[in-house]
């Protein structure tokens, strides 16, 4: 299966590599390409480097580009306009770090181009629409760190490609299960009980996958 690739366009080579490192930890099968700094190693954005990164990240399912500051967006836009098929890539206006993490997890889960772009944009959103839950289950978190970064990423990935709207509730807070950052913002720890609700054709499958994950203590 080909996945959506990601390009991180930054003025700094170090920053671009760091974002790739962080987002890649949660998305081992996604092609993440850093494009930071100028050709001579300085601060700035390099059109040729962005174009090359765009080509490498393109695995057939499209590419989402995230950027740090204004002129990086311009260079990203130019690189996309230079593609044979400009529709195959989207420059997304999103917070760089949160957006990259959210987009990488969505791509790992098999989301399409628009889905990955949307995940990047809502990266830091924690509010979700109230679903009319058909199924729900309470789940005791028995792993030590609860829904911290890695378990949250595993959970989001488990349901990302299912036809189901999945919500995780803890206390009076709710999170879209596809959003790693929203899950982390719940701050549910080991020993806490969360409530999973799912709606849609694959709601049962979604609940089962999350139960399995939790029963394995998220492979800790």
């Amino acid at each position, binding site marked *: 299966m080909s996945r959506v690739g990601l390009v991180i366009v930054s*003025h700094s080579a170090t920053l671009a590599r760091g974002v790739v490192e962080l987002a890649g930890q949660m998305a081992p099968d996604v092609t993440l390409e850093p494009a930071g700094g100028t050709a001579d190693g300085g601060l*700035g954005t*390099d*059109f040729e480097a962005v174009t090359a990164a765009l080509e490498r990240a393109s695995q057939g399912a499209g590419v989402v580009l995230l950027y740090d500051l*204004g*002129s990086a967006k*311009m260079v990203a*836009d*130019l690189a996309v306009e230079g593609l044979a098929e400009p529709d195959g890539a989207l420059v997304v206006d999103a917070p760089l770090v949160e957006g990259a993490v959210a987009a990488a997890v969505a791509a790992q889960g098999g989301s399409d181009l628009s889905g990955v772009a949307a995940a990047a944009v809502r990266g830091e959103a924690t509010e979700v629409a109230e679903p009319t839950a058909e199924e729900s289950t309470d789940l005791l978190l028995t792993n030590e760190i609860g829904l911290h970064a890695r378990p949250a990423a595993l959970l989001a990935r488990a349901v990302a490609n299912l036809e189901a709207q999945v919500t995780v509730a803890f206390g009076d807070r709710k999170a879209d299960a596809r959003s790693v950052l929203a899950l982390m913002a719940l701050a549910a720890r080991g020993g806490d009980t969360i409530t999973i609700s799912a709606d849609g054709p694959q709601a049962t499958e979604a609940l089962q996958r999350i139960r399995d994950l939790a029963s394995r203590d998220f492979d800790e």
Partner: protein
Amino acid sequence: MGCTAEQVAAALRAAAAVVAGHRDELVQLDRAIGDGDHGENLKRGFTAIVSKLDASTPDTPSAVLKLAATTLISTVGGAAGPLYGTAFLRAATATAEAEELDAASVAKALRAALEGVVARGKAEIGDKTMVDALDPAVRAAEALGDNDVSSVLAVAAEAAATGAESTVPLVARKGRASYLGERSAGHLDPGARSTALLLRSLADSAAGRP
């Protein structure tokens, strides 16, 4: 009389010399309200244009402008690369068929350049950017009507200089300077300044002055 590809190339060489001569000034302006790289970046870009022209000069004015565009996009690391690159690219497209540039095609190229910069950078008049120099330049060139290339560029350069000066009291709303908020007021915008410098240089070339 129109401008040939050779003359456009010569004008770009002269512009490169002007940019190099004003490198320190542009760096100082950018250091005040930006990241301080505008003079160096632009000098690098125009030096690269000259190198490419040394290797071979394209046949039409449009092709020369396109060479400048792709070179600036590839070699200028800051916002000036995509912005000036887009400006030259749109100017090249607007003059695609012409063997020589007359006054009307120069005005058309300037209009296309402005529209490209606005589309790329999303800046408006009063945002303290190169648009504050380029927009009045385009309107002055269009208002002159039927005339010769050197006159069109002369009024454009004049209007650009006035427009650039008008950025001094402004609070920046686009680009790195916008992060400074009120503290960006009281400084000449480096992008508006370089736009005015480039148009002055082009006007001098068209008038036969070095």
